[in-house]
C-alpha cells in the first residue's frame, strides 16, 4: 500500500534563506505523525507545501496518491486543515461558523452540529467566536477542519497559546481523532506534546530533518543516563555514590533533593530501597529535548 504522504527531497528558499532544505519522509495511513522543531525550523513551510498552499522550488510531494501542487480540487475534500491562527468569519457564532464551513464542502448542517458536540462546544454554539476562550476557539477550529470527515488532518501548532488545562483537554480530543482511524500530521515546538501524542516524529532544525522515528525509540537511541532523585538527608552523597555501583553516575545534592544520574537504574533503585531512602522518589528518563541536544549540540529553545 502506498504512503498517505510521501515527500522526497523537498526544497524551498526565500531569497538566500533555505526554509526547507532537502526534506524527505513518509507518513503511513492511520499514523499520528509529528514534525517537531524550534520556531523557524521550517515546519510550517513544509506543512504548507504538503497542503498545497505553496509551490516547492524542487522535490516531490504526493498526498493520498495525488500531487500536492497545483491546488487539486479532487484532493481538497479529502484533507482537513487547521491553521495556526483562528481563521473565522467575523461576528458569526460558533454554530454559524461551522455550518458555513460544512456547506462549503456540501455537508448538511446536522453533521456540523454533531461535530460541535464531538469537540464539546454544544453549549457555546450560540456564542460569537470572538467571545470564545483560546481553548474553545482552537477546538472550534479543529471541528471546522474535521466537519467534512477528511481522511487526513493537518494541525499547525494546535496548542500554541493555550493554558495547561486547555492543552490537556485538547490532547484528549486529538487522541480521540487519531483513534478514529484518521491520519494526523501535526507540527509543534512542544517536545512533550510530540512525545505524548505522536506515533512517529521527525525532528527538524534549520530546514532539515535530523532524525525521524517513534519518540521512545529516539530517546532510547541516545543512551542518556536516567536521573533518579530522592529527598535530601536520607542518605549521604557518599553512600549514594556507592549505591550507583556499575552505573558510574554523578551524584549531586542541592539540599532539597539528592540526584543520581545513572545508566543502571535497577541497581540504584534497589540500593536506595535497601537503605529505606525512597521518600520523594522521582525517576526521569531522557526526553526528546535531550535528543535534540544530542543531535544539534545546543539546548532546545522553542
Amino acid at each position, binding site marked *: 500500500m502506498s504512503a498517505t504522504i510521501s515527500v522526497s527531497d523537498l526544497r524551498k528558499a*526565500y531569497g538566500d534563506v533555505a526554509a526547507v532544505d532537502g526534506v524527505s519522509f513518509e507518513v503511513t495511513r492511520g499514523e499520528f505523525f509529528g514534525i517537531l522543531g524550534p520556531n523557524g525550523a521550517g515546519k510550517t513551510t513544509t506543512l504548507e507545501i504538503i497542503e498545497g498552499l505553496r509551490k516547492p522550488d524542487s522535490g516531490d510531494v504526493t498526498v493520498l496518491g495525488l500531487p500536492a501542487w497545483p491546488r487539486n480540487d479532487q484532493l481538497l475534500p479529502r484533507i482537513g486543515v487547521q491553521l495556526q491562527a*483562528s*481563521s*473565522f468569519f*467575523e*461576528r458569526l457564532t460558533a454554530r454559524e461558523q461551522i455550518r458555513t464551513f460544512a*456547506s*462549503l464542502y456540501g455537508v448538511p448542517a446536522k453533521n456540523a452540529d454533531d461535530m460541535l458536540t464531538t469537540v464539546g462546544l454544544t453549549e457555546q454554539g450560540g456564542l460569537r467566536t470572538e467571545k470564545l476562550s483560546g481553548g474553545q476557539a482552537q477546538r472550534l477550529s479543529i471541528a471546522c477542519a474535521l466537519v467534512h470527515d477528511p481522511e487526513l488532518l493537518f494541525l499547525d501548532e494546535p496548542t500554541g497559546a493555550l493554558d495547561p488545562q486547555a492543552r490537556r483537554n485538547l490532547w484528549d480530543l486529538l487522541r480521540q481523532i487519531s483513534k478514529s482511524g484518521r491520519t494526523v500530521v501535526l507540527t509543534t515546538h512542544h517536545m512533550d506534546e510530540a512525545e505524548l501524542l505522536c506515533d512517529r516524529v521527525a525532528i527538524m532544525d534549520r530546514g532539515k530533518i535530523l532524525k525521524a522515528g517513534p519518540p521512545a525509540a529516539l530517546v532510547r537511541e541516545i543512551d542518556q543516563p536516567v536521573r533518579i532523585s530522592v529527598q535530601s538527608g536520607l542518605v549521604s552523597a557518599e553512600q549514594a555514590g556507592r549505591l550507583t555501583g556499575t552505573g558510574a553516575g554523578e551524584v549531586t545534592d542541592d539540599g532539597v533533593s539528592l540526584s543520581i544520574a545513572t545508566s543502571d537504574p535497577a541497581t540504584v533503585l534497589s540500593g536506595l530501597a535497601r537503605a529505606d531512602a525512597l521518600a520523594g522518589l522521582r525517576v526521569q528518563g531522557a526526553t526528546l529535548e535531550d535528543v535534540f541536544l544530542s543531535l544539534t549540540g545546543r539546548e532546545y529553545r522553542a
Partner: protein
Amino acid sequence: MRGGGFSSLSRAMFLGFVRDRAALIFSILLPVLFLLFFGSIYKNTSAPKLNLVAVGRVELLAQARQADPGLSRILTISHGRSVAAALADVRKGTDDGAVLQHGNTLVLRFSIADPTKAGLVNSVLGSIVQDANQAASGQPARFTLAASQVEDKSLKAIQYFTPGLLGWALASGAAFGAAITLVSWRENKLLRRLRLAPVGIGSIVGARIGIAVAIGLIQMAVFLAIATLPYFGLQLTSAWWMAIPLVVCGILAFMSIGLLVGAIAKTQQAATAITNLIILPMAFLGGAFIPLDFAPNWVKEASYVMPLRYLVTGMQDVMARGEGPASALPAIGILLGFTLLVGAIAVRMFRWDDI
C-alpha cells in the same frame, strides 16, 4: 457544491455586516444624518422669507396683501408694540425691517447686517409703494415684467445633495467593505482556509460583490425613502430607475478601489487610512459634498478624473434633472471601464497571504 459555497459565503458576509455596528453607522447612519442635517438647513434656500414688524396701522401693506395674496409667501408681518421695541428687533436680526405709516409716507427701518435681506426688503417695499402709486393714478399698468427662473421649479437643494450624499455613502461603503474584508481575511488566514476548501475564487468574489450590491441598494432605498418625505420634498423624475444600474456600476468601481487597497495594505489600519485618503478628497472634488454647479472651476476640472463624479452627476441627471434613461449610459460606461482597469491591477497585486 459551488452553489452551496456561494450562498453560504454570502450569508456569512451579510451577517458579518449587519452585526458590525461601526459599519452600519458609517455606511448608513452617518450619511443619513448628513442628509437630515443638510436637508433641514437648505430646505428653504429657494425663497428667502422676509420678516417685517409693523407698528400701528400700516394701510399700504394691508392693501398690497389684499391685491396680491402671493405676497404672504415671502412676507411675514408681525405687529410691534412700540417703535423702540420694533427697532430693537431689527437690530437683533429677528426682523428684517420695521414699517410704519405716516400719512402717505411708508417708513422703513432696516439693518445692513445682512446686505441681501436689506436689498430685498427695500425693493419689495419699493414695489409695493409703486404699485400703490400706480393704482392711485387710476390708469391700467402699461408695462409688466414676466420673470421666472431657468431651472425646473422643483430643482431645490435636496435634488442636488441627495444624489451627492448617496454617491459618497455608496463609494465609502463599497471601498471600505472590500478593503477591510480582504485585509482582515488575509490577516486571520481565513483566505488560506478558503483556498483549502473546494470553493472557487469566483464564488468568493461573487459573494462579496453580491453583498456589496445588496448593501448599496439598501443605502439607496433608505436615502430615497427619507429624501422623498414631504418634509424634505425630493421629487424623483421619470427616469430615476436608471439610477439602479448606475448604483450597481458605481459599487463595482469603488469595490475595485477597495480590492486594490486591500491587496496593497498589510494591516486593517493601513487599509482604513489609504481608503480614507482616496474617498474623502474624492467626495469634496467629485461633487458629493459640494454641487459641481456651484464649485470653483478647478474643482470642476479635477472632478473629471474622479469616478465619483460620474456616479453623482449620472444620478442627478436621471433622478433630479429629468433627463432620459439614455443620459446615464456614458456614466455607466465610464464606471465599468474604471472597474475593469482598477480591477485588473488589483488582481495582479492580489496575495493570498503575507509571506
